């Protein structure tokens, strides 16, 4: 019955005029691109094979490696700081709470770039000492300070998402507050916040490109700085294409994983 009425209607009515218009626009755009784009120029500037060949293997062995190392270190240091801040923010002792709140508001309110420049240039000028690890180390510390502020709020939300009865059950068995937090509350909180933390990790991968502004030695270049240097050298934009692909190779599987985790989490809760 339904099938016959459908067949009886003319095809343009079935598709709908609005959809039809959108298809027409799409076809026009594609045709314009095909006829007017200068493919040779595009290829020379974004997909120059010779430049690509010259970038390897350094783009992997130096740049991608540094990006990954910097991200992992930043995430690890930031996570530890964030856990400390989250626990301080829930402390019964006022000054701890105030410090944590102040810290979180400060570093979430500032552009990450300001913090990075402050750590790399401001601190050495002010106190006459450098953060170890060279520019890469300074970048990692600077970005950790920022990441900690964001992750602290995530962890705090995770802790608060664990039902109050869990703490009560642990305490009623005689467990101390610290033991209950470490063995009962935090394991559940972290399970809840794995997706947002993975998101934070993806953001950090991209944020390490900010290291570009504090300058680096040839051996400590990460992907963005590496591409920028190579562009000057090669006088075309191909290096950007290459590192863009490399960034996506790292970030896309992770965001796909976040989606999977979120789906399984919502299934688990039901």
């Amino acid at each position, binding site marked *: 019955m339904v099938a016959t009425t459908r067949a009886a209607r003319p095809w343009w009515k079935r598709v709908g005029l609005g959809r039809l218009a959108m298809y027409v626009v799409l076809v026009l755009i594609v045709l314009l691109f095909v006829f007017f784009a200068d493919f040779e120029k595009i290829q020379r500037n974004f997909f120059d094979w010779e430049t690509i060949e010259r970038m390897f293997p350094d783009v992997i062995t130096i740049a991608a490696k540094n990006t990954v190392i910097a991200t992992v270190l930043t995430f690890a240091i930031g996570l530890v700081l964030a856990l400390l801040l989250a626990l301080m923010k829930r402390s019964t002792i006022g000054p701890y709470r105030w410090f944590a709140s102040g810290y979180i508001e400060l570093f979430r309110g500032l552009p990450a770039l300001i913090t990075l420049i402050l750590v790399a240039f401001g601190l050495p000028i002010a106190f006459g000492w450098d953060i170890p690890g060279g520019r890469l180390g300074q970048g990692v510390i600077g970005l950790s300070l920022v990441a900690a502020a964001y992750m602290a709020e995530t962890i705090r939300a995770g802790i608060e998402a664990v039902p109050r009865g*869990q703490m009560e059950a642990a305490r*009623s*068995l*005689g467990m101390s507050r610290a033991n209950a937090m470490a063995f*009962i509350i935090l394991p*559940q909180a972290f399970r809840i916040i794995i997706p947002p933390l993975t998101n934070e990790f993806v953001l950090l991968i991209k944020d390490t490109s900010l290291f570009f502004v504090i300058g680096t030695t040839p051996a400590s270049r990460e992907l963005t700085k590496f591409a920028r240097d190579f562009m000057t050298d090669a006088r075309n934009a191909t290096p950007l294409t290459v590192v863009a692909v490399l960034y996506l190779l790292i970030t896309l599987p992770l965001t796909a994983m976040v989606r999977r985790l979120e789906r399984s989490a919502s299934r688990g809760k039901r």
Partner: protein
Amino acid sequence: MSANPIQVRDLHKYFGELEVLRGIDFEVAAGEVVCVIGPSGSGKSTLLRCVNRLEEPTSGTILIEGEDITDPEANIDQLRAKIGMVFQQFNLFPHLNVLRNLTIAQRKVLGRSDDEANQVAAAMLERVGLSDKIDEFPARLSGGQQQRVAIARALCMNPDMMLFDEPTSALDPELIGEVLDVMRTLADEGMTMMVVTHEMGFAHNVADRVVFMDGGVIVEDGPPDQVLGNPQHERTRKFLRAVAQAEE
């Protein structure tokens, strides 16, 4: 005979402006089973939760085996380990399997070895009839099974007394019996028990004493036959009539 293990004197509890407990004097003798009944908002759960200081009393004293638990100097963790508590919502630890639910506090609080904790856990699980569920996670158990595991978890600490906070109120009707059976066995074995409940049958058959609370005070306190069968106060009669009507 030594002093009663649970002694509550002139207990007051405020939530903000609201006075939830208005001067409670209350004792439970060793081996005694006391059921606390009353309408919701009567303060019965708050009283129970004050006994192991999950709620901080506003004033008054609570002696557990002679020790004042409201004393800031008291080692509250040691005292709580002696007081088993069972919650309306079970509150099993969902990230741990049944065995680890039963052993974690034994290891962290009593300092038992893994072997000893595992042995005690297995014995307590057998007591509640769930030996075959030792490796399951709580989410895979029925409500009744979860509550029995929660009782076993409390028993693992070798408590001197058990507090039950509406242990069957969150259960489907057909699962209430298995939990009450476990509690009845515990009572028969001589456990000191304080049970906040709406199960009048359990209160009548198992309790040594029934306490009726309303409006933050104890209205009536006596043997089940008297409080449930021949209540002296109008408020008790009204409550029992309402419960009987609801059960019809």
